[in-house]
């Protein structure tokens, strides 16, 4: 009689993240584990050799040999890519989220970032018809905003076909350093972050009922026009759009620029002035599909 295979039952030791310890120390009942998710941060699926000449046992040999890192205790550094539950097994394409830069008002700056002018002097410096600038003090000064589209980015399926409802992303998390900026709607709708963690990372939670932020993508069904203004080439789900307002601290103080940033920088499209700047990013993640993206953002400031 052979031994039973007990490999399906695995005991793992968990470590608290800094946010876990922070909440535990607060003692206000916010430390309550309610759910779990699975991650595969270390896996490079590009190593999967689906046509390995030695057979299927060798398809994932390199993946299974991937070394796994110990746990990061910084809550923002773990579980960047999550596994997804979709009960159907016959999917060949998965939805992704992509930055939509198809229109001028959505384009990044030539520095490959979205540049947020953190004070009025910097706002006034911005030349007309230059892409990728957001006005951090008076957002209405610029029509620019950040847009993320979701759907199947494949030319194998027509974009005029509806995305299956179970693949449509309806909830997004947006994270930004709360010391630097706040997320607002494209019509300057103000929304409070769901929470701010111990590292001052603010998380905003948006659903498809937040019309100022999440909307269905409308595809022009006219033949030949399906891709106009679009970045997802296949069936489309929802889009998330928002602006960034600089914090009062950035507007009034140079402390964070001196601490986290650099000075003496030339920014294209601002008249050749010299700026202090901080590079950071805004992380967008779909709650249902787990797809995520880091959007580079640069805060700039010039003394009056």
């Amino acid at each position, binding site marked *: 009689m052979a031994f039973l295979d007990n490999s399906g039952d695995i005991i793992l030791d968990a470590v608290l993240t800094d946010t876990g310890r922070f*909440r535990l120390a607060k003692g206000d009942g916010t430390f309550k584990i309610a759910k779990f998710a*699975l991650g595969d941060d270390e896996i490079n699926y590009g190593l999967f050799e689906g046509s390995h000449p030695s057979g299927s046992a060798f398809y994932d040999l390199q993946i299974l040999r991937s070394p796994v890192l110990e746990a990061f205790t910084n809550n923002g550094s773990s579980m960047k890519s*999550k596994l997804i539950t979709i009960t159907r097994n016959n999917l060949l394409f998965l939805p*992704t989220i992509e930055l939509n830069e198809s229109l001028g008002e959505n384009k990044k700056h030539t520095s490959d970032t979205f540049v947020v002018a953190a004070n009025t002097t910097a706002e006034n410096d911005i030349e007309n018809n230059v892409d990728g600038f957001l006005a951090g003090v008076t957002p209405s000064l610029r029509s620019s905003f950040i847009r993320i589209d979701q759907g199947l980015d494949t030319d194998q399926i027509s974009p005029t076909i509806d995305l299956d409802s179970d693949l449509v992303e309806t909830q997004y998390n947006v994270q930004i350093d709360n010391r630097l900026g706040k997320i607002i709607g494209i019509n300057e709708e103000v929304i409070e972050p769901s929470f701010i963690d111990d590292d001052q990372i603010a998380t905003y939670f948006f659903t498809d009922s937040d019309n100022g932020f999440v909307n269905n993508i409308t595809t022009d069904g006219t033949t030949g026009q399906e891709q106009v203004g679009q970045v997802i080439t296949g069936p489309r789900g929802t889009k998330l759009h928002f602006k960034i307002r600089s914090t009062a601290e950035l507007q009034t103080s140079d402390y964070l620029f001196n601490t986290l940033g650099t000075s003496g920088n030339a920014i294209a499209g601002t008249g050749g002035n010299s700026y202090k700047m901080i590079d950071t990013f805004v992380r967008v993640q779909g709650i249902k599909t787990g797809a995520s993206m880091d959007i580079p953002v640069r805060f700039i400031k010039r003394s009056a």
Partner: protein
Amino acid sequence: MAEIFKPFTSDDIASTRTLLHESIPLTGTIVSGTYADSNIKNYSHGMFQSVYDFPFLSSSSNHIFDITCGYSSTSVLSSSSNLQNDKKIAIYNQMAQVLAGHDVSGNIRQFDADGNLSDGEKHKNVFFLNFSRLLSKDEIKKGTFSMTVMTGAYDSPEDNGNMAVIADTGADTSFKVNSPAGEYGILKRGETNVGLLYYQAGVAVLTASIMESAVVGSKFAVLGDGVSGSLTGSTIQTCANGFRHHLKNISFNNTTELNSTIYFCRVNHNEYNYSANPTYVNNGKIVVKNNTFDNPVSYITTVGLYSADNELLAVAKLSEPLKKDPTNEMILRVRLDY
């Protein structure tokens, strides 16, 4: 419906309590000899002496225990002419009120030899060994404590050859609970009660008479004949020196109480077979599938435990990637220790 989180039900969470034990051997050469007393810290207040496992000026040294001594004000040794008489009484009373408590009238109880507080012999002249939390952890394991005391002269303590072995024999099944400081056992030499061991407090109380009776005509400490002479005519520091030089070894097991919550992460066959890893798709197509009939597959390396508002509170890692596809299901037991 695509999902990345799976909520726990009440059946998925279990709490356990585990007692971990470590063996703690302390040799007499560390206590006196190896470091020529550079691991012994004395204080200007003179109330006790600290023993380290390495010269205490080194940052890598660890405090292992303190030694002090005292006597009751009702002891025959108590006399205003004694050296540090007030301090010795103060030490006794301080330790007694913490470990033995007060009677109904508010008077500090004396250490009782057999644990029966209502009557019987009292330990009035005692040495205290206060073990550091580093060694005793949550408590000393009952029935594991043993110490050997040499009973020869100060400079050649082993000459006598008459070792006194003191232990809490049988305390694992017979211990006392009438102390405000937790459970305690009786320390015995043979059948004679010679002290008390407070398990949670990590304090051994030893009657000084164990030395007195063993030392025949030899000097216990630098000053005075026998331990009574030392207790009356020497400082606490000198008495502590004498005690150290007669200590051959101490051993016990400590106990760490580990409270754990186990989260059963149940992964069914149709769950977590896809990934949001950016490398999982190429031009929208899943790279681990060649056609729609192929099973999806993913590889688990991490389990994240989340709050209801999606904050990552704890992380567990697997030692190697774990393959997940629709043909298998698993339970990942994630243990969080407190």
